[in-house]
């Protein structure tokens, strides 16, 4: 009887506790500004063991919330050098792009009350050198690297580019730097760091040793764990558990008066289905880009307050060829396959809400392509569904058709095998749709899934696949866009500022394309060298190079561009308003940036 009583008491306690826990949800909203709930797109999976460190891959420094960059890139269609203010309120860029002078937010303080100064920025630049970045690279000859960092006054700092090998992305490289408080991180960087850096920029064994010393600091920086969060962002991390992180408003933030939420909740997610559940139950004020099937989308839209916002996402997905393997070394085979793929149907099946069928293969997202190429985009071959032309292309390649099925030139069976990482459900659906279309057209085809993304990338790089899916068009910087087609994966590497081509199967070259391409109306081009030029040229010259590369990609088809992603986000207007409109460039930044700019308002 005693045991029974004890069990009953325990159950009662659990029930009471459960009820009280439930009640607390409703009463714990904190201050008048309310609680803003979201998922951090950059770190959806929280880790309580990770340090509050923006360079740590799992660090609990969340971009835009409690981790601040010098400025926030707009990622416009064509210009990588447009920004929203961050630690810097404004900036002056030299006309020849040789330097940038940053004017810090006046009156901005760290959450512990100390002022944010130019010395903090300079110190953070030192940390950035240990991690490597475009502007803060130690490697000799690196394009777009800074040569000098000068503190002008407490709130002004000037960063000068090494004009021996300049890059149009220098400014972007500077602005992307995180800024952390020097008084917290002081112990990580030795006092003679800038002398060591100066030595590292030279030649010879001493310079090599100095570079080694700086690189050796990288582990220390990555692992550094401040005892508590000291933030210059709109929020400060208060506490975490494995499921959620709670951040509270930083009263010292320069724009604190316009930061509406008093508290911010970041939810841990390990898969899209959890985000769908949170959205369906109306818990999230904002969910970043998430692939959503049509039926789930209907349920999400039916939840009161939920709205969908769409904008530009500088990413496209393609079907990439390993040209080291036959018959994909033959451009007619690649073109023939392009004419057999119905991209509209594939996109409708794989990514109806998050993608738009590619208008053609140019290597660029169609929205940016229109800006870069203008009418020239229409002159590119669209590769619309056309089985007759596909047959001609296959015949041109010497393939044979027997009993309605295409075989290799020597009469041996031909099977198109597309590899896909299994966890990417939209890619799997797309690959299945493509194989179905090809099979209908007489091309034997199959989909093979790989267990996970690291394995997929590893086997892809080893040249094990004939065809695989590959993200391209990662803009807005033109070099970044074309590097996906004519970079390391296709044999071109930039070493010490010089372009070097490696043969198929070496140095990460799994695409195995030719080193030069004869482009109609242009002549012979080396696409890797052209791509590297995009680092330094600007204006009309840049447009001319892009046009050549787009033509080369369109004619030679190292990949077939399938669909261009659409940045589909979700917001709930029950608690907050002021979210970005459709097509806003802010959709390419986390909602912490919307909040810090003062856009988000509590619903009255």
């Amino acid at each position: 009887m005693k045991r029974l009583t004890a069990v009953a008491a325990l159950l009662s306690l659990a029930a009471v506790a459960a009820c009280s826990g439930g009640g607390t949800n409703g009463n714990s909203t904190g201050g008048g500004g309310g609680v803003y709930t979201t998922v951090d797109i950059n770190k959806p999976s929280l880790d309580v063991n990770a340090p509050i460190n923006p360079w740590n891959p799992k660090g609990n420094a969340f971009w835009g919330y409690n981790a601040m960059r010098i400025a926030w890139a707009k990622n416009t269609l064509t210009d990588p050098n447009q920004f929203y203010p961050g630690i810097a309120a404004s900036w002056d860029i030299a006309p020849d792009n040789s330097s940038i002078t940053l004017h810090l937010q006046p009156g901005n303080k760290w959450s512990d009350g100390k002022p944010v100064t130019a010395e903090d920025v300079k110190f953070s630049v030192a940390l950035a050198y240990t991690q490597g970045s475009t502007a803060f690279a130690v490697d000799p000859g690196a394009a777009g690297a800074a040569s000098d960092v000068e503190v002008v006054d407490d709130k002004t700092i000037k960063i000068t580019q090494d004009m021996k090998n300049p890059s149009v992305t220098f400014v972007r490289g500077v602005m992307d730097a995180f800024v952390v408080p020097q008084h917290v991180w002081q112990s990580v960087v030795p006092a003679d760091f800038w002398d060591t850096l100066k030595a590292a920029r030279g030649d010879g064994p001493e310079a090599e040793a100095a570079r080694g010393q700086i690189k050796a600091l990288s582990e220390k920086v990555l692992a550094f764990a401040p005892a508590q969060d000291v933030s210059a962002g709109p929020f400060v991390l208060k506490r975490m558990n494995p499921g959620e992180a709670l951040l509270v408003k930083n009263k010292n933030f320069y724009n604190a008066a316009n930061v509406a939420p008093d508290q911010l909740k970041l939810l841990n997610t390990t898969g899209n289905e959890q985000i769908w559940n949170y959205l369906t139950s109306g818990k999230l004020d904002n969910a970043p880009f998430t692939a959503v099937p049509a039926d789930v989308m209907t349920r999400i839209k039916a939840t009161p307050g939920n709205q969908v916002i769409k904008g530009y996402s500088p990413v496209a997905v393609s079907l990439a060829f390993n040209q080291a393997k036959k018959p994909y070394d033959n451009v007619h085979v690649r073109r023939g396959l392009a004419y057999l793929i119905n991209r509209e149907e594939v996109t409708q099946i794989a990514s109806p809400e998050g993608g738009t069928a590619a208008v053609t293969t140019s290597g660029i997202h169609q929205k940016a392509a229109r800006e870069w190429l203008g009418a020239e985009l229409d002159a590119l071959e669209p590769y619309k569904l056309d089985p007759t032309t596909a047959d001609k292309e296959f015949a041109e390649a010497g393939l044979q058709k027997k009993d309605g099925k295409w075989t290799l030139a020597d009469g041996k069976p031909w099977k198109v095998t597309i590899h896909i990482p299994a966890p990417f459900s939209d890619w799997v659906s797309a690959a299945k749709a493509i194989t179905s279309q090809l099979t209908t057209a007489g091309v034997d085809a199959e989909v093979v899934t790989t267990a996970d993304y690291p394995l997929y990338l590893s086997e892809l790089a080893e040249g094990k696949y004939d065809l695989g899916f590959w993200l391209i068009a990662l803009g807005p910087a033109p070099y970044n866009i074309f590097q996906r087609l004519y970079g390391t994966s296709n044999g071109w590497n930039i070493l010490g500022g010089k372009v070097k081509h490696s043969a198929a199967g070496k140095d990460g070259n799994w695409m195995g394309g030719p080193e030069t391409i004869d482009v109609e109306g242009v002549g012979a081009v080396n696409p890797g060298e052209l791509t590297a030029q995009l680092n330094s040229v600007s204006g009309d010259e840049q447009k001319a190079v892009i046009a050549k590369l787009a033509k080369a990609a369109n004619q030679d088809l190292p990949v077939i561009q399938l669909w261009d992603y659409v940045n589909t986000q979700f917001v709930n207007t029950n608690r907050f308003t002021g979210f970005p409109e459709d097509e806003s460039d802010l959709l390419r930044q986390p909602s912490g940036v919307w909040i810090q700019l003062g856009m988000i308002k509590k619903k009255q």
Partner: protein
Amino acid sequence: MAVLLRRLAGHVARGFVMILVVTTISFLIIRSVPGDPLAARYQKLVEQGMAPDAAQRAVEALYGFTPKGGLWEQYLDYMGGLAHLDLGQSLSVPGAGVSTVLFSAAKWTVIPVLAGTLLSFLVGVVMGVYAAIKRTGVLGDLLAISGSLLHGVPQYVLALLLGAIFTTLVPILPAGGTADIMIDPGFTADYIGSLVQHATLPVVTYALAGYGGWILAMKSSVVTVLGDDFILAAELRGMKRSIVFRYLARNAILPLFTILALSLGLLFGGAIFIERIFNYPGLGLMLIDSINNRDYSLMGGAFLLITTAVVVANIAADLLYTVIDPRVRSGGEAA
């Protein structure tokens, strides 16, 4: 007592060798897992908008956390570290020790799985006895059917079903997490309530998933014991039902103790599906994450923890069996 100590020493020695062998095999398997974690990290950074050269340098900074040298060298390093109880550094969370990450995740697995296992054991055993005694009645049949049904339904189906009911259709329980972050952690009714509330669905799923096996095993065991002569003799002597019941239960439950002990050893393996579905971040999710990130040290640490737990549970089961069942004692002590 000396016999027990001798037996214990033998078990510990054998257990140690077993852990050593399994650790070596795990090490070899883990190191041969294909896939490049740094390439995946590079792709992620590029997809986030980082310039390719910057992404390459950022990845190189991580290189310091990857194991160095040949396989044999790595093995010696690893075993040398283990000798000093150092499980190494995590690659996916640079700067965090493997043991810190493991124990941080372990508490969110062990407590709910332990609660679920013990709950299912207690209910399953009691219902199993009842189902055996009443095996010719409707209630006995219903209990047996409930056991078969729940035993046959996969854990993840149960989890999805309970999740759909209690987080969407009748949303009275949280869909994920371990506790409401808005409540200050501490030994307060609010915080404990929140912990209980968040653990309810995982615990109930573990309990329901285990219940079927216990009830069926117990019923079968009781039915066997019911036919034994000593039960008949007890009944013929006119012993009280409660005493007969005690004889019955004590003998029937013996095989289940071994299974229970082994189940407790497997606690550390986590329940990947349940933790994933309820977004309950324990060892199962951590193990998946470490595999996805090819975090060799963390994977090795997790396998070592699971192996050690199973070996210890085996030893405990064997010793417990010696204590509770006089027939297996050696040296004529049972006589």
